[in-house]
């Protein structure tokens, strides 16, 4: 009997992927939405347990290599899990599971009971493929999982109640497919040069081709393709509409995971596969990324200030926050990278919480316009309380998670003696105060519209996940071992590999 656990531990990387991947078709077989929801929730929480176990194994700088199907790399597909992988894995599963738990009530108001099981199926598929992207060590595998996750995402978005969800999903489909095909071209070029698709193998073989034009083209295609997926300014065109019109709770999941995992792929390829020296030295990625991400931060924050729809406002804020992560990466020093990885986790947590709290409010008001949400602080005090904590976290007030990542980002800029950049970052934080403050002002101090004067507090199944997000935001603002501590080690690893 004692052998079974140790065998199970060895197979954990495969179990991690299979849990959600197998639960998806099982869910689709039921017509009963509640039953599917139970299966999906159990599968996603089991997946969280798995992610914790894997994080525990690699904690402190370890790494696991698992041979899928017993084929040794570079011929077979390798699953590689190191600390960066484990934290992204935890992000996807934990926040996915929390949203899944809260999803049932919110979904029942927009969808017939029989259809819900299919929605959970798509949700699980999206989660499984995001896990797949994260753990795989094979370049082509990344692309396949990226496509699966995109297809699932388009479907999730198109289910929004507003018909504009359809056009938003279509627009994302076009942009996303172009992006993925660009990545396919990039991988093709790399394969032409090296004859391998294993990422570790690629990183060993690519340096001898650094002067080859084919590799330059490959890098260009990859950067544009993945930037489309990350929604990096100015390729963020699809994001605001997709977030605004997708079903309420789904936005929380997408905002937390989809763009973050794409960013993870970007970090993985640029630092581990192409190599820092090639990407930032020879190809001058920094000169492109730094001004664009700063412009993105400022333009998107400013646009967010002038939105009158809460979901759209938060969507624009997401574009700005992605700029912080890109800037952290482009700073190319320990503090900058630490901030990029920490903010990936923190922002996923805060934005998922914000969208979920908003979903709880919309569950009652049926509208996300700020006019409909006015005075909601009095009718739904608990939901608005969670929203306020998360919003303050997003601004970056001390003792919240947002402060930690911004602190590292500003230190990273100062390490480089880029004083103007640090000042611009602080200005962008002021803009965050403006747009979060605008929402809180409306929610707490404006009179409630007559038709929403006596709405009740949100259902407990949605309220509790909201508060978990809010409390986590405070927790990770104080105890940073899991986020910044791990990110620091990851950063020195990524930079040391050059």
């Amino acid at each position: 009997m004692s052998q079974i656990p140790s065998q199970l531990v060895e197979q954990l990387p495969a179990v991690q992927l299979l849990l959600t991947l197998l639960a998806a078709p099982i869910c689709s077989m039921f017509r009963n939405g509640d039953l599917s929801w139970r299966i999906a929730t159990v599968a996603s929480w089991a997946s969280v347990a798995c992610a914790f176990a894997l994080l525990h194994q690699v904690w402190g700088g370890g790494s696991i290599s698992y041979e899928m199907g017993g084929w040794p790399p570079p011929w077979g597909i390798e699953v590689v899990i190191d600390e960066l992988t484990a934290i992204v894995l935890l992000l996807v599963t934990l926040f996915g599971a929390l949203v899944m738990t809260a999803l049932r009530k919110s979904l029942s108001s927009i969808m017939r009971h029989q259809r819900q099981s299919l929605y959970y199926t798509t949700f699980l598929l999206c989660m499984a493929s995001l896990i797949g992207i994260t753990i795989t060590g094979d370049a082509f595998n990344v692309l396949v999982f990226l496509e699966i996750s995109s297809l699932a995402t388009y479907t999730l978005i198109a289910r929004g109640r507003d018909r504009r969800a359809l056009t938003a999903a279509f627009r994302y489909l076009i942009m996303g497919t172009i992006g993925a095909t660009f990545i396919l071209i990039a991988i093709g070029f790399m394969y032409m040069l090296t004859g391998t698709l294993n990422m570790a193998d690629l990183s060993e073989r690519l340096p001898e081709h650094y002067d080859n034009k084919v590799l330059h083209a490959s890098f260009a295609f990859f950067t544009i393709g993945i930037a489309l997926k990350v929604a990096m300014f100015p390729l963020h065109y699809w994001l605001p509409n997709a977030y605004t019109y997708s079903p309420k709770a789904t936005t929380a999941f997408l905002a937390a995971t989809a763009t973050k995992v794409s960013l993870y792929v970007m970090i993985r390829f640029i630092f581990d596969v192409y190599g820092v020296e090639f990407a930032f030295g020879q190809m001058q990625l920094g000169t492109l990324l730094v001004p664009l991400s700063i412009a993105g931060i400022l333009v998107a924050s400013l646009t967010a200030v002038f939105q009158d729809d809460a979901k759209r406002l938060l969507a624009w804020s997401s574009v700005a926050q992605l700029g912080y992560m890109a800037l952290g990466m482009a700073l190319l020093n320990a503090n900058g990278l630490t901030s990029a990885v920490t903010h990936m986790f923190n922002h996923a947590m805060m934005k998922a919480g914000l969208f979920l709290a908003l979903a709880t409010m919309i569950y009652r008001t049926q509208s996300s316009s700020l006019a409909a949400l006015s005075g909601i602080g009095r009718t739904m005090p608990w939901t608005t309380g969670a929203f306020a904590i998360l919003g303050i976290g997003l601004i970056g007030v001390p003792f919240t998670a947002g402060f930690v990542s911004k602190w590292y980002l500003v230190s990273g800029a100062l390490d480089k003696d880029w004083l103007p950049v640090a000042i611009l970052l602080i200005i962008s934080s002021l803009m965050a105060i403006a747009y979060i403050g605008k929402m809180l002002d409306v929610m707490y101090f404006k009179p409630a519209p007559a038709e929403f004067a006596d709405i009740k507090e949100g259902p407990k199944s949605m309220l509790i996940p909201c508060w978990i997000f809010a409390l986590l935001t405070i927790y990770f603002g104080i105890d940073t071992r899991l986020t910044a501590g791990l990110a620091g080690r990851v950063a020195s690893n990524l930079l040391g590999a050059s």
Partner: protein
Amino acid sequence: MIVGLFNYWIVIILMMAGLYIVMSSGHLVKKIIGLNVFQTSVFIFFISMGTVDGGTAPILKDGFTVFSNPLPHVLILTAIVVGVATTALGLAISVRVFEAYGTVEEDEITAIDRDNRKREISVSTVVTESAQKERDQ
């Protein structure tokens, strides 16, 4: 040069044509067609890359010595499946768009959305004004 790299020239032409259709056409179905042409060009690129002149399929038997590389071909099988799924989903969404808007021309959809938005704003200002009045009383 041109004859030797014939496949790659075709790839480039198809790729540019496909991307051009996606960007220039406002018709949702035509966009999907453009996307397909674009994806297919990349498929041809991969297939040409794996081909060895005079090579056969990889058959492990005496008398067959020159093989084409089967790996890119297998990769493209996967990519084709993904492409079909994307096309199906794109067309399905187009049908739903047609049901919801009565058109699949992007310009007309944008115009309809803009009109609706104007109406929404006027409604919401009425709502806030009435709330304001209530507070004043």
